[in-house]
């Protein structure tokens, strides 16, 4: 690991100012992700700007929205009474993430900016178009059990690992940023990018921008939400497939539904067509099956992840059954 400079920023504005004037710098909060990436040689920074002391740790339930400060810890959000009551999918997604020790340290902003768990990306000795553009993607013909069946291309098929991002995607959250050119808000649906020809670019963030908070609309729908995470061991593991779902019924008819998927896409995956296929119709096994088929219509599975085509449809059916009271 390379030596690096370190500054503690006192305010978001100062943090952004330092970042703008320090090439190769990065913000650090809990450090549970960034330091590992630096140790593994997957990422290198000459300077770290500590953002733990900015006034961004709050969790506030205001009229119409829940505001999560970027340096709130995963555990604080997961255990927050309003979050548990009105946004169960957020709490469940966070509690299904990492370990208690990591949840005590890791921040909301950092969680959203996790890098993929793709082994090729994290091994500095392997080619990887995301880490070293132009070097190629060995996952496509190699080990790709953990990789995406949706949204990939010939440069990258890595998944985004954050459970929280999947839940926030289902709830139409907005990511607030502060940068050298001022503050702006990005809907989460536009926050994560498809790899396309530039897999090294994962988010819509511009150089020097800092996540300040995340807003989540406070809706009745969010109160009827759940997170289902399937993985290769019981805890402390990333999703093979996950589903964040919110469902509001009127009798047997779906009044509104939000769905987002983890483990299957190169970004937290939302498909408006799938939701539209369910909305306004009776929630039947058949309707759910049709929605599932729609979800995977453009899937491009590989040898190691072919099963996800089937598994994600079953996961969708399972969570909708639960939320819709089909069993």
């Amino acid at each position, binding site marked *: 690991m390379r030596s690096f400079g370190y500054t503690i920023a006192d305010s978001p504005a100062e943090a952004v100012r330092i970042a703008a004037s320090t090439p190769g710098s990065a913000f650090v909060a809990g450090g549970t992700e960034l330091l590992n990436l630096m140790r593994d*040689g997957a990422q290198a920074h000459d300077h770290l700007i500590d953002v733990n002391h900015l006034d961004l740790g709050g969790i506030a339930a205001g009229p119409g929205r829940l505001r999560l400060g970027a340096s709130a810890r995963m555990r604080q959000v997961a255990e927050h009474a309003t979050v548990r009551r009105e946004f169960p999918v957020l709490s469940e997604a966070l509690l299904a993430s990492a370990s208690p020790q990591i949840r005590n340290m890791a921040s909301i902003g950092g969680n959203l900016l996790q890098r993929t768990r793709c082994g090729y990306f994290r091994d500095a000795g392997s080619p990887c178009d995301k880490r070293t553009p132009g070097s190629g993607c060995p996952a496509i013909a190699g080990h790709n059990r953990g990789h995406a069946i949706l949204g990939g291309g010939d440069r990258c098929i890595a998944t985004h690992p954050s459970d929280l991002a999947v839940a926030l995607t289902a709830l139409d959250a907005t990511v607030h940023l502060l940068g050298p050119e001022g503050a702006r808000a990005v809907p989460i649906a536009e926050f994560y990018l498809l790899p396309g020809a530039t897999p090294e670019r994962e988010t819509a963030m511009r150089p020097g921008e800092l996540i300040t908070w995340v807003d989540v609309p406070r809706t009745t729908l969010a109160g009827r939400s759940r997170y289902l995470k399937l993985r290769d061991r019981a805890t402390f593991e990333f999703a093979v497939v996950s589903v964040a779902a919110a469902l509001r019924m009127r009798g047997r008819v779906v009044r509104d539904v939000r769905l987002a998927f983890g483990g299957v896409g190169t970004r937290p995956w939302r498909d408006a067509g799938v939701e539209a296929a369910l909305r306004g119709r009776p929630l039947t096994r058949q309707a759910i099956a049709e929605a599932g088929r729609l979800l995977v219509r453009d899937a491009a599975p590989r040898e190691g992840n072919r099963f996800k085509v089937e598994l994600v449809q079953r996961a969708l059916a399972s969570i909708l059954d639960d939320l819709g009271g089909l069993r």
Partner: protein
Amino acid sequence: MSGLVGQDVARVDGRAKVTGAARYAADQEVPGALHGFLVMSTIARGEVLEIDARAALAHPGVVAVYTHRDMPRLRVPDFPYNRPFIPMQDARVHHSGQPVAYVVAQTLEQAQEAANLVRVRYRAEDPVARMADVLDQAFLPEKFRDRNNEDGRGDAAAALEQAEVRIDRTYASPMQHHNPIEPHTTTAVWEEDGTLTLYESAQGVVFTRGMVTQAFAGTDRPPANVRVVSPYLGGGFGAKGPTYPHTLLTAAAARLAGRPVKLVLSRAQMYTSNGHRAEYRHHLRLGATRQGRLTAIDATSTAQVTRLDGRIYNSSDSTLHLYSCPNVHVRQLGVRLDLPTSSYMRSPETTSHFGLETALDELSHELGIDPVELRIRNHTEVVQATEANGRTERPYGGKHLLECYRAAAEAFGWARRDPRPGRTRDGDEYVGWGMATETHTYGHIPSEARLTIGLDGRATLRTATQEIGTGTYTVLGQVAADELGLPIGHVTTLLGDTAYPAASISAGSSTVPSVVGPVSEAAKNARAAVIALAVADPRSPLHGVPAGEVVAEGGRLFARGDRDRTDTYRDVVARHGSPVEVTGRRPNTAGHTFGAVFLEVRIQPRLGRLRVTRVVTAHDLGRVLNRRTARGQVIGGVTWGIGFALMEHTMVDPGTARVVNPNLSTYLVPVCADTPSVEALFVDRPISDSQALGARGFGETPGTGVPAAIGNAIFHATGRRLREVPFTQDKLL
């Protein structure tokens, strides 16, 4: 005897371990030690053309960057060095992650960063990394450690031909890594008197000393003496049994630098530096009568080996010996890959045993005979073996496997099992019950122990075996305390230092069978020596009592018939004026240990979610020396078995031959939530052919049946037979 042996005795080193007071190898503070870090090859096959160390040498704190041009020429025998070559002796690269340069710096961070700055230019050749691509090139390797890779008895081919019922299946398991929590470490100190001292994470300090001594014997300045120190080990599981290159390279670097050097492997480096369980395919054909008597076993296994060697570490002992079968043919083939050499990994025989115990379950289903009953019908009380002097049949010194089946089946409630697959439901879950026999061989290494009774009447036991986390300090302390008639708190046990009498490596379940006898002997001799002093000393109340009439209890000596005539260890030795020091040896023999595992799985069929919800084991380990540490072995073994069955899998990229998941984030091992509580039963009966107070070697037996038992339970739950681990969710959809 005061009766500590056989009890549930808490670990004497438990407090030291949980408080951090226990000093592991890398905790040794050696004044002036530099830090080493390895530069590993990024290609898997080819040669180093050029190493540019200028940037590394310019980095602050860097003392040296050594390459194959600098290293002394080392020579090693075939075993227990585990590689067919020594790295950094020439420019050749045999696998990815092979040391090509050795950086030495003032701090660990400086050494690590400088290692990143070393530029290596290679001439690369295409590696062969995937066994499936070259299975047609499988060959029968030469014998390894005096064991042939083809073995058997009778005529399996003919018996198969004539069999009333046949099973013909192939089973497979992937490459797996040991992943001890303590990384491998060596601190090498060339002392002024010519001694080379190594603070080493070693399962066998004596083995390591022998290997290092030989490696440097041909150099221009061989060490006058090699001392290896390893007082505690943070898990080894075979990964720290043989001696590995980093140990030799660190000793060489320390000599070149003229300063002590400390090396700690990174987690990622541990995936190419210390062996692994070989990828393995197992083609099994069973022949049987309709009544379920085995008439033939034909087993052909294929394991990964390297271009330079053909060592097979996963023997087929259970296929050869566990069941009564007149016709057995075993062939262990190898396939050459450009990967590191594999090695022993707890428990080596699990690899082949998984196939055997699954095939038996398939046979039981085919025949409609209960799996336990099938095993009982093929039970044998004698070892059927082909040995150097021909075929032999010798009895085990007591084999209470039938009792294990009975006890575990009863505790589990096996009699209530509906044998039909897929018929047991609970809510939306399928419930499956499966079982398997557990067995493993254990070794024996001639060992010696030295016992000293000090002027304070307390005992110090010294023997150069190791504590690898299994409870050696405690068990040996119990044995010595009982034999001496001292409280266990008055016995200090010192292990893991070649300054002590040579003793067994802690591998192959050998520690108890090898060392308990010598410790018991030493303690017996010490007691006899102190009693002899007492009865000969006119100042002792025991003066004149026949030595055979003196008993020792609770630190005191009594005349058997007259307990008022009493003396103490402390007074006797204090009057004598100098400590009493004796040694003990007691040869033993290797053998087999047996047991059974019964377990329950629950499967949510829609999502393929599987949980192991209940485990009952029963083992015959001869006499149980410490119920708590024995139970610890069962819990550990079952947990390993769950990992083997459900998740462990080292992934190697087919193109680059690099390990894709060299960390504990992506190489999955079970967490507590994957592991149910285990009911561990013991048939606690001394065996006649053990010189270790009736105990057998036990460490590696528990868990050997677990992967098959889980697969068998999955079949029972769902009717789906899985033959390739890990049994991941996608296979259960």
